[in-house]
């Protein structure tokens, strides 16, 4: 049995005092070499779910274990460190700081983590860019805003992967891409993952990209959302 990266139990989160928005998770587990596709409509709690996992939201009840450590009652500094050390995160769009170079955008991924810096080799930027079909020579010193959206998303993947974090989270990374680019993106993402070490959670509003994922779940199967 492979190692559990994330386990969530009996989690209860509500926003504000009047509980207008609340989210419940009975059980969620991400193991090493798992790849999750979680789909669902907007407002179904996908972003809240990811924010809870990555420690930027604090639930009122329950446990979130990241690599065996329950982060619910940890200080935000500890949670920031855990996120920095063990997570790689890709957003929907605008993942990059437009005014710095591609290289620096990728290096930013390990800037706040000693662990990632230790695990990352000097030529990791090139290795990742090669894996993600980004022309190193052409692009490495370009400013991020000069790249196409597709290239930017792949740079974002490189940033998420640098320093070999165990948990990769992708929040609708393909929504800004056209169909061909979406497929290519997913292919490259899986190609560059180290399946023996890493686990992937990707959320998306549809499940048409699901063929590569081991586990595909509707968000409603994981979370019970009350949104009055």
């Amino acid at each position, binding site marked *: 049995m492979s190692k559990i990266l994330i386990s969530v139990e009996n989690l209860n989160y509500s926003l504000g005092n009047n509980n207008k928005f609340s989210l419940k998770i009975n059980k969620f587990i991400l193991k090493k070499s798992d790849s999750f596709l979680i789909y669902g409509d907007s407002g179904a709690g996908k972003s809240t779910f990811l924010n809870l996992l990555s420690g930027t939201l604090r639930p009122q009840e329950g446990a979130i274990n990241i690599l065996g450590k329950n982060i619910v009652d940890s200080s*935000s500094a500890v949670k920031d460190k855990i996120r920095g050390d063990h997570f790689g995160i890709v957003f929907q769009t605008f993942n990059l*700081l437009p005014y710095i170079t591609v290289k620096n955008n990728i290096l930013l991924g390990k800037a706040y983590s000693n662990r990632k810096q230790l695990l990352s080799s000097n030529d990791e930027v090139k290795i990742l860019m090669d894996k993600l079909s980004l022309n190193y020579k052409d692009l490495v010193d370009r400013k991020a805003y000069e790249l196409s959206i597709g290239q930017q998303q792949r740079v974002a993947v490189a940033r998420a992967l640098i320093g070999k974090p165990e948990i990769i989270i992708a929040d609708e990374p393909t929504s800004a891409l056209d169909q061909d680019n979406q497929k290519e993106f997913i292919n490259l993402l899986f190609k560059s993952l180290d399946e023996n070490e890493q686990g992937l959670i990707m959320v998306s509003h549809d499940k048409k990209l699901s063929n590569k994922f081991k586990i595909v779940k509707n968000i409603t199967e994981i979370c019970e959302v009350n949104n009055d």
Partner: protein
Amino acid sequence: MIKFTLVFQSLLNRWLSCLLIILTLACSISLYFTVSRIQESVKSSFKNTVSGVDSVVAARGGNLQILLNSVFLIGEPSAPIQWNTYKDITDNKKIKWAVPISLGDSHKGFRVIGTTNNYFKEIKYSSGKNIEFLLGNSFNDVFDVVIGSVVASKLNYDIGEEVAITHGLSEVGEVHTFHSEDVSPEEHAKHEDHDDHEDHAKHEDHDDHEDHAKHEDHDDHEDHAKHEEHDDHEDHAKHEDHDDHEDHAKHEDHDDHEDHAKDDDHAGHDHENLGFKITGILKSTGTPIDNAVFVSLAGIEAMHTGWIGNQKVIDVSVEQIMKNELEPKTISAIFLSLNNRTQIFQFKRDVLNYKKEAISSVMPGITLSRLWMLTGNVDKAFKIITFFIIIIALLGMIAMTIAGLNSRRREMAILRSVGASPTNIVSLLLVESIIISIISCIAGYILMIVIFSLGKDYLQNNYGIFIDSFSIKNYDLQIIITIIFAALVATIVPAIQIYKNTLRDGLSVKS
């Protein structure tokens, strides 16, 4: 390393607004630097100039005016005092040394100080430093000139160079020129006459003229001029109406002389020389001394021979001048030091009790401290204004940072996603502020150097303000540290904002 790159690139990305903030900050900072330097320089230059002078005796008038004029060479000269007064005053047993000063002429905008060699011996600057000669030495001859270091460097003068002295303080005044004659034996006899007349003119004409000047009685003077032209004795009769023309013979003599000069037809006057020759150049003192041209009192007297008031009435040759006893009739002020400084108030009373002329004794130290009291408030007001300007610039910086925050929320979410804590993000903001304020301080400092490089001569020539050093002073460091600290404090507002934002947004990127 990458974090620093991040800050720099982020600032570069917003270069226009940053540049504007840096400009406003730099301008206000340079204003502060400039004002403090001018204040300091004024004070030190004033303080340094009057070392060792216990009292300045001059015609009764405003103490400050006397001091500014005689010591700092600023403003119009005060009324003259009689040479006899100088003699009487220096008889006072309390006096250690006394140096007479005669002002009112200039050379290419630099003020001429008529004095004695004692000036270079006795006057000190910068708490007791002697005035030293860079080249040459003090006056030996009537027409010897000693110049200050700024005069020498500005006008590129060297020892032996001939210079002309201009009457009055403006650069366009009439130049004192001299004519030399080839005196033939026959003519010599005639000239004896001249000398007589000269003496006469000097002793009485001069006093007369002083009266004129004091009363601003120009009509009289014009009448006088008419006399010379018309040689009309009936006119003379009219003149008897005038009180101050007690001595008519004088006028006749005068006219005689004019005629005489005309008769001579300026035969031997073909060589008009500049008259004065540089014999000494002083070392730099950082005081108004550097901007002065020194001439012996005899030289001052020589160049005014033949002058009445502000007009040259008689052309007198060098030879004639030299035959006279060149003792001044009047001087502008006396610098003096007492044997015992505690006697200063007694001496002051002695001066006030002097019967023959209304004179007073000014104590440089006390007068200066009065001046500081007077200017102190202006100083403060200036500093407060510059401080407010700096605060306004800092407010501008806060406004810019806050305005930029919303568009940078995405940036913050990205940083959060890679593990940056809200504290990290706030510290990025603080580093930005520090960078902006440091750059502004440096730019302000450079701006200050530029301002002074451009305005140095103007300040020096017009206000006697010497800016010699641009080095960072203690008070500069204080203000730099204050500004950086204030910038940090100012950043607290946007920092709180961004802290809240990052907590609320988490990883969700808000557009």
